[in-house]
């Protein structure tokens, strides 16, 4: 059995990372659990009426007590 490489270090503070076509932000909930927010980098297509991506990307974790 070969040892696995060390897991990627987690960023904190909600900085935006890029993963493929996604932006992601890592937050911590009040009880310490991890929460990752994903949003698409490309603007939502006209048919994607359910996408509130802009709102998600703009939301601040501090504003919402994360």
């Amino acid at each position, binding site marked *: 059995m070969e040892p*696995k490489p060390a897991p990627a270090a987690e960023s904190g503070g909600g900085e935006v990372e890029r993963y493929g076509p996604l932006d992601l932000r890592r937050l911590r909930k009040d009880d310490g659990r991890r*929460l990752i927010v*994903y949003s698409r980098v490309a603007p939502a297509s006209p*048919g*994607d009426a*359910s996408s*509130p991506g802009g709102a*998600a990307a703009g939301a601040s*974790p501090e504003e*919402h007590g994360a």
Partner: protein
Amino acid sequence: LSELRFNELRGEEVAYAIHRQDRTFLPDRAHCPLDPTHPGGPQTEIPLEAFEIVVFDNRFPAFEAPAGAAEVVVYTDDHEASIATLPIGRIEALMWVWRHRYEELGSRPDVECVYIFENRGVEVGVTLHHPHGQIYGYPFLPPVAALELAADERLGGCAPCLLLERERADGRRMLFENEAVSAFVPEAARWPYEAHLVMRPHRRSLLECEPGELRGLAEALLRLVHGYDALFERPMPYVMAVHQAPTASSPGGGHLHIEFYPPLRTAEKLKYLAGSEQGEGTFIGDVLPEEAAAALREAVDRAR
């Protein structure tokens, strides 16, 4: 923490997560924990007013570090949506989220198998209606993953590749194909309308997929779910199981495919796992896979 005990007669691990007994169970509409948090409203699991997709540690985990992981994947902030009503762009984004979680959880030394799944409908035990799936990082190789590796050994190659070749040659149970994915009812389906989405190129996991293949997988997934919902003209309950290569530090094995296990055998009748299935592990089928495939093909076409 959960406790693992080894069931010697079955040769399998059993996980006891007794804290899950108290998990949120079918809350009323105003108290969905997977909704966004609105100003002045109750604090939910997601402290954002709007979002596309979020993943968080399960509050009631079956597994957690340093012995595995349990995450919740919320597909949308729209409580009334379902995977079938989401636009293709969102499903494609979901494929990337799954890929990301597979990569991160799979790199952990305490995770040997990353299992992404969705329970859809109260018939399969859903406790929250908001569209979501889950991810388990098993700290051991679970039995189904081990059986798939054993099938590779038995067949002398990648079992999903070989079985897909057989299905395509036979043709009777094929549902549809796109550039990357083939959909079919397997020859020996265990559930009445079981269907599999299999990557046609050999891809051990989402990590090996090209962006266009992830798009193809998203399209196939949506097309199949639309077909399921058209079959009985109601949202089809199912368990959706994403099978990928185990992430234990051993080489080889695994082929990305998604298995769907719908429990309905008619619009109103459930297939129960009863005496033969539970007591001896032998499924008794009510619908021939060829007939199920014909009905599903018609439903998939009707849903387009």
